[in-house]
């Protein structure tokens, strides 16, 4: 079985489990909605217009709900020591990483896809073509930090305080993509020329590439005894 086939099989398995339960997806979505809500109430409506904080709120919400989503990824494996079973399968460790990452990315993007229209609704964002580009930026940002998250959640889940440790480890790694993405979002919503965007998009793409490669290389170190 080629690495790609094995990775796809693992991703399919994870997503199928997710789809049957739906609890994790619903909870993560609910969490995203609540974060959006808290921002609306935590500002002074008289002095801070919704439009001013909209890009920041989008990115804080997407980052936090991605964290919640990643936390459950390896918890699935811990129950009944399911990860041990996968490790016994005659497939490359890299294939397991790619599979896990694909499933995590799909899960995070699904939560984002639900949160995104709600953000448009709650923050009175004017619908325009720029929003499609913002969605593209969201995908570009998610690729990199889900790679880091996949690696770290594989470690965190085998420690005490797994739920606490993952955010502490992962959040510093979310700073560059979240910053670049919210800067890009800001410019897209303000209708700035494309020239101002390239730098941010390049930073995101470089981050994705660098961390996909390194996380993939380090993954065997984490799972092998």
């Amino acid at each position, binding site marked *: 079985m080629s690495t790609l086939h094995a990775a796809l099989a693992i991703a399919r398995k994870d997503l199928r489990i997710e789809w049957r339960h739906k609890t994790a997806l619903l909870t993560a979505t609910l969490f995203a909605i609540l974060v959006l809500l808290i921002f609306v109430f935590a500002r002074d409506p008289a002095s801070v217009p919704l439009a001013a904080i909209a890009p920041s709120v989008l990115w804080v919400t997407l980052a936090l709900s991605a964290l919640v989503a990643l936390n459950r990824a390896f918890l699935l494996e811990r129950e009944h020591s399911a990860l041990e079973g996968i490790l016994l399968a005659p497939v490359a460790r890299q294939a397991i990483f790619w599979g896990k990452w694909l499933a995590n990315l799909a899960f995070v993007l699904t939560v984002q896809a639900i949160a995104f229209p709600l953000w448009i609704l709650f923050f009175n964002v004017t619908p325009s073509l720029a929003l499609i580009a913002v969605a593209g930026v969201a995908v570009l940002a998610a690729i990199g930090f889900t790679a880091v998250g996949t*690696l770290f959640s594989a*470690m*965190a889940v085998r*420690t005490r305080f797994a739920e606490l440790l993952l955010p502490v*480890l992962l959040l510093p790694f979310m700073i560059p993509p979240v910053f670049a993405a919210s*800067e890009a979002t800001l410019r897209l919503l303000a209708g700035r020329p494309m020239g101002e965007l390239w730098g941010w998009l390049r930073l995101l793409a470089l981050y994705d590439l660098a961390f996909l490669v390194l996380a993939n290389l380090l993954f065997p170190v984490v799972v092998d005894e």
Partner: protein
Amino acid sequence: MMTALERAERNIRRGLVIASAGLLGLAGVYLMAWRFTPPERFQGLAQKIFYIHPPAAYASEMAFVFAGIASLLYLLLKDERFDTFAEASAEVGLAFALVLLTTGPIWAKPIWGAWWTWDARLTFSLIEFLLFAGYFALRSAVRDPAERARYAAVVAIMGMLLVPFIHLTVYLFNTTHPQPVVVRTDKPALPLVMLRTFLTSFAVFTVMYIGFVTARYGIGARRIAREMTDAG
């Protein structure tokens, strides 16, 4: 032939001697800064922090880089001494980073007018501090020593790749930090007497780093040696 425990004890003693020399040197730097350098024209006495703050930044940066290199060597060679060294260096780095993050605001209040600004280098130091604080949170959450060493090494190596990205990010964000006055393409832009104190401080911080890390390495090695004796 020395036992591991004796070697560890010797490292602790040596480390403490070197660290004491370093601390004595630090007292010397204070004296030089206080008695032998003039107050700076624009910043006045606040500028004195310059003899502590950049050397602390240099020492913490060196400590983190060595921790990263040792982590990489641990994964390649699987020698637990590299892990013990990485832990020691990272912990000393955290201590220097704390000096950095406390002296910064003390200077910033009179000069920038605010204790904390989201200046690029300040933000960078804070994130690096948090990264290595997370490294220790992870270390304390794993019981098995081999597993702890592997996980810690993974985080440190990922951290090394993160550093250039954070650097880029914070500079794109904002900087009001003073520009370099010593390492420049033309000659240093400060009087010789100030430069002498400044460079002495760098040497002193290097000595302190070596002393602290040697002692801390000895403490780590002693813990492992004791666990071995208890288990065996």
